[in-house]
């Protein structure tokens, strides 16, 4: 048990910092994934044929490509790009892409593809009258989206987005394969030093389960809050 503790010879602190990095990667991926996903969803509803094809293509492609492949491609691709730029600009510095940034960007791209499906369904769930009413009030496109449509669509999208968040949390474990010191990698390091495979990997699983359970609890609260106007008082 002292293996998991915070004292000397305990790995508690490294696990805790790993857990924080795990949450950090997921939280960094979230805003980009949500916004880009919304843009893809709007693209799929667009009048322009080209935009529609591009958005559907993006969503289908990133739902089909393994997350790990996206992570590797972004990580190695960005590294090469930066090296190329630095050699072109004659900058003598050894600077590599931080794994956290590449990892959360890659996970954000995947999140966007999946969340576009949910945004699409949510936007379709808003009655036509809402769009017409916004138009007849003379609201320009962006304003009608921001003030009228999105606040309603968000409530419809919330349960699906919550599921994606939980998937995202678990996918952060893949970032350990590009040497980001999140929970999985910290546990791997601890395992390499102590050879307590079973205990430590079980502990890692439980760590993620705690994160997903906390998320489920918070999401349930959020859902209740978002739909509180629908609750009938007896």
């Amino acid at each position, binding site marked *: 048990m002292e293996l998991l503790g915070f004292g000397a010879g305990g790995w508690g602190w490294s696990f805790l910092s790993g857990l924080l990095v795990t949450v950090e990667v997921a939280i960094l991926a979230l805003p980009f994934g949500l916004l880009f996903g919304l843009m893809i969803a709007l693209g799929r509803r667009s009048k322009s044929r080209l935009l529609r094809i591009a958005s559907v293509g993006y969503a289908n492609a990133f739902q089909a*490509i393994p997350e790990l492949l996206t992570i590797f491609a972004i990580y190695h691709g960005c590294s090469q790009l930066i090296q190329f730029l630095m050699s072109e600009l004659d900058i003598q510095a050894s600077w590599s892409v931080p794994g956290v940034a590449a990892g959360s960007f890659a996970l954000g791209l995947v999140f966007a593809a999946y969340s576009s499906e949910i945004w699409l369904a949510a936007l379709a769930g808003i009655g036509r009258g809402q769009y017409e009413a916004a138009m007849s009030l003379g609201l320009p496109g962006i304003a009608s989206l921001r003030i009228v449509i999105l606040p309603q669509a968000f409530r419809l999208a919330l349960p699906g987005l919550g599921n994606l968040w939980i998937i995202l949390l678990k996918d952060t474990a893949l970032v350990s394969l590009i040497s980001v010191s999140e929970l999985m990698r910290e546990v791997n390091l601890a395992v390499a030093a102590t050879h307590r495979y079973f205990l430590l*990997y079980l502990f*890692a699983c439980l760590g993620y*389960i705690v994160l997903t359970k906390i998320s489920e609890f918070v999401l349930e609260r959020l859902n209740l809050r978002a739909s509180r106007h629908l609750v009938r008082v007896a």
Partner: protein
Amino acid sequence: MDTSLVVENAGRLYEGFKLTLALVGSAAACAAIITVPLVLGLRSNSRIPRAFSRTYVTFFRGSPLLAQLFLLYYGSGQLRPLLEDLGVWWLFRDAFFCSVLAFALNSAAYVAALVNGAIDGLPEGQWEAATALGLGWVATLRKVIMPQAIRLALPGYGNEIILLIKASSITMAVTLYELLGVVKVIYSRTFDITIYIWAALIYICIVSIVRLAFKLLEQSFFRW
């Protein structure tokens, strides 16, 4: 685009592709077997099987597959004396077996939740009608409930297979080089980023074929 990279490594990529298919196929088959007792447990009237199934589903759905794979592959090494006594150590020593088992255990949790939800989705009247016809429990499930539940669960099951195809790429972490593993090796030899784009195209093709197959399957189920 330059195709020489793919042509040169076609043999290796094909080997990786075959391994991916073998992993997914065996894992899906094993998962189907594990799903049956799990669903029965989830729907059981007695507490112990229900609690067990629920814990199982929570555990495997709540933690990353990568962690489960490590737990099974490296963790089994610590239980070696026990596994040797049981005469199954030679199985757990094998990365392929451990990967298939980890994928199957994980996938079964998702499929069990899916099937359970599909059965929940059927109206109460179906059970009552079956009881009124005097059908036994097994006959009710086999003739009335399952044919309808399968139709409800089929699209979700297709997604689960696609997730399994994508998830199979993590076996490189336990020294098993399937399609993405081979691609990673090619990249580390050539530092040519285009190999990732080719890999992405291959995966998109595989997933599209699976999607199409499930769409046809759904149509044949819904043909009436």
